[in-house]
């Protein structure tokens, strides 16, 4: 057993850390305050290979593994939650389905430019009436005959979609019929941003992650060619369950990065801030908070890395990914909350950044399956019972 990262993973971590400190950190505050999508920053990531870390080079990616990807997301989240979410949604949810189910033509046309970072990707699953119950999709796609296999006419809408309005390619799910047993048959489609009948509705004003875009997708007689169906007809639901398994690793990594940022800030502050004639870190009340943060973060990181490792080994990782995401996001919530507490009143003001980590971390308990949904997934696997 070897707990050391490989030299390549170490170099990757150091490279992203240097890059983030020098090129990203100085602009974070401005974008967050203005709630502006960081197009300039995202454009720097592509040439470095950060927009397609775990995909092979012939698909436009950097040819690294899931562990490298988790490290990359953690390091980005350590300086900027919004950027980590943008990259995670693009990579896991935008590129992921194309890598998993795309045919050669679809990969060349859509995945390569995305993984190279020239086109941003997004994934539209959630709807206003279908959140945790993502199978409850009401958006429909109706087949119409014609040359080249005809077209699909999509109607409906999506909500809470990361990178909405910024993406050039959207992967969306829609009902394409009824299953023999009754339930909805769901398929996935590749949608170009300029497609007629497609528009982006309102963008959400969020609690945190202010520089990331979260918005509504609207389909009104939106027509896509048959060649843009992704994967087999009716396989959309199975595919997105798989995609979410992988996505959970990146949300877990994002949670670890935000928690680590809170810890780093708290360690520095607790050593420097003096009250009652000594650094506040010398009070057990404060030191124990920091000790708990450090301990839980370490555990969370190991769980995320292990889930990534299992995936890289080609083994079943869905339980490990759900556990890692659940634990890391709840650790992140506690650690960022304690980060504010360690800073006292200064933690509550924006200048010290820890309040941003807290606001950003909350999303990790909600996106890609809430903590309750993770517990259902885990409970079902552990108990082998149909938990509701």
């Amino acid at each position: 057993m070897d707990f050391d990262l490989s030299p390549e993973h170490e170099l990757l971590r150091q490279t992203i850390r240097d890059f983030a400190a020098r090129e990203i950190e100085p602009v974070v505050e401005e974008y967050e305050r203005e709630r502006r999508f960081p197009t300039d920053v995202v454009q720097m990531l592509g040439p470095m290979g950060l927009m397609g870390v775990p995909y092979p080079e012939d698909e436009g990616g950097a040819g690294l593994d899931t562990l490298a990807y988790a490290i990359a997301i953690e390091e980005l989240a350590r300086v900027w939650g919004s950027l980590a979410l943008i990259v995670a949604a693009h990579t896991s949810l935008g590129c992921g389905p194309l890598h998993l189910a795309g045919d050669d033509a679809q990969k060349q046309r859509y995945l390569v430019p995305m993984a190279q970072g020239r086109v941003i990707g997004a994934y539209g699953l959630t709807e206003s009436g279908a959140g945790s119950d993502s199978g409850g999709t009401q958006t429909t796609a109706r087949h119409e005959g014609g040359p080249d296999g005809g077209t699909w006419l999509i109607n409906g809408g999506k909500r809470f979609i990361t990178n909405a309005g910024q993406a050039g390619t959207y992967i969306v799910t829609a009902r394409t019929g009824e299953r023999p047993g009754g339930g909805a048959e769901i398929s996935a489609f590749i949608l170009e941003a300029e497609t007629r009948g497609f528009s982006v509705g309102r963008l959400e004003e969020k609690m945190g992650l202010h520089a990331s875009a979260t918005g509504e997708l609207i389909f009104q007689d939106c027509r896509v060619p048959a060649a843009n169906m992704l994967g087999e007809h009716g396989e959309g639901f199975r595919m997105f369950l798989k995609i979410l398994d992988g996505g959970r690793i990146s949300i877990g990594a994002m949670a670890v990065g935000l928690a680590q940022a809170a810890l780093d800030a708290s360690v520095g502050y607790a050593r420097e801030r003096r009250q009652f004639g000594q650094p506040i870190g010398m009070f057990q009340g404060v030191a124990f908070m920091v000790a708990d943060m450090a301990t839980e973060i370490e555990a969370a990181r190991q769980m995320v890395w292990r889930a990534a490792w299992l995936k890289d080994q080609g083994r079943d990782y869905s339980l490990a990914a759900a556990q890692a995401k659940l634990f890391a996001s709840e650790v992140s919530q506690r650690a960022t909350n304690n980060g504010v507490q360690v800073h006292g009143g200064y933690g509550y003001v924006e200048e010290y950044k820890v309040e941003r980590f807290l606001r950003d971390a909350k999303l990790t308990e909600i996106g890609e399956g809430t903590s309750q949904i993770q517990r259902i997934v885990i409970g079902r696997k552990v108990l082998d019972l149909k938990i509701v």
Partner: protein
Amino acid sequence: MRIVVLLKAVPVVGTERLTSDLRTDRSGTLEANGADEYLLEAALKLAETSGAEVTLLTIGPAGATEALRKGLAMGAASAVHVADDQISGSDGTQTVELLAAALGRLEYELVFCGADSSDGGGGVVPAALAVRLGLPYLSYASQIEPAPDGSSVRIRRLNPTGYDVLEAPTPALVMGTQVLGEPRYPSLRGIMQARSKQVQTWTLADLGFEPSAVGAAAARTAVVSAERPPERGGATVIRDEPDAAVQQIVEFLATRRLL
């Protein structure tokens, strides 16, 4: 054209410590010397524009591998690592002898090196090495332009009023500055490609050195004592709006007749 870039592995800036016998402690994490990275960047740009082949050369402990790995990930084609336990404690003269011996086994038109290292800071190696090898020495380059056929090299050297242009036939040794431009970040693909690039490790025996010729016992210089610099006193920090701040800085300089 073949360029050898001398790349020293130094303790991570800010973590430098001396051992009890007043040598730089190299047991911790090492990184590529910042001043050398500007030259590596200049060499890599030449690799891109004119197909130059870049080889890294370092003398250092096992931990120097990480600095080489980064250089290879940035785009160097290969690396040579001179490593031998006996070398520890060598001084500037011995370093120059070792580098000269290593370069004697390599083929090149240009040798690039940074002005100094962030740990030792001696700054004697570039000039001494050029003299030792009998190479033209072009120092403090802010721009490096080899002739298309590689037979000569021309550099710009900043001076207080502008710049000098120096030109020499190759092989030549160029020492450069940060004006050459910021080093690139390794790309993720570069990190993966570095895995399959060749790193040769040479020992003293490979270079034809007797162990007794190097190391602390044979060094001609020794550090006699070391002291921390005194803490810097009372800096004035100005936190006003830019206009008001500029005004104050101008006044500060003016009262000291620095403007």
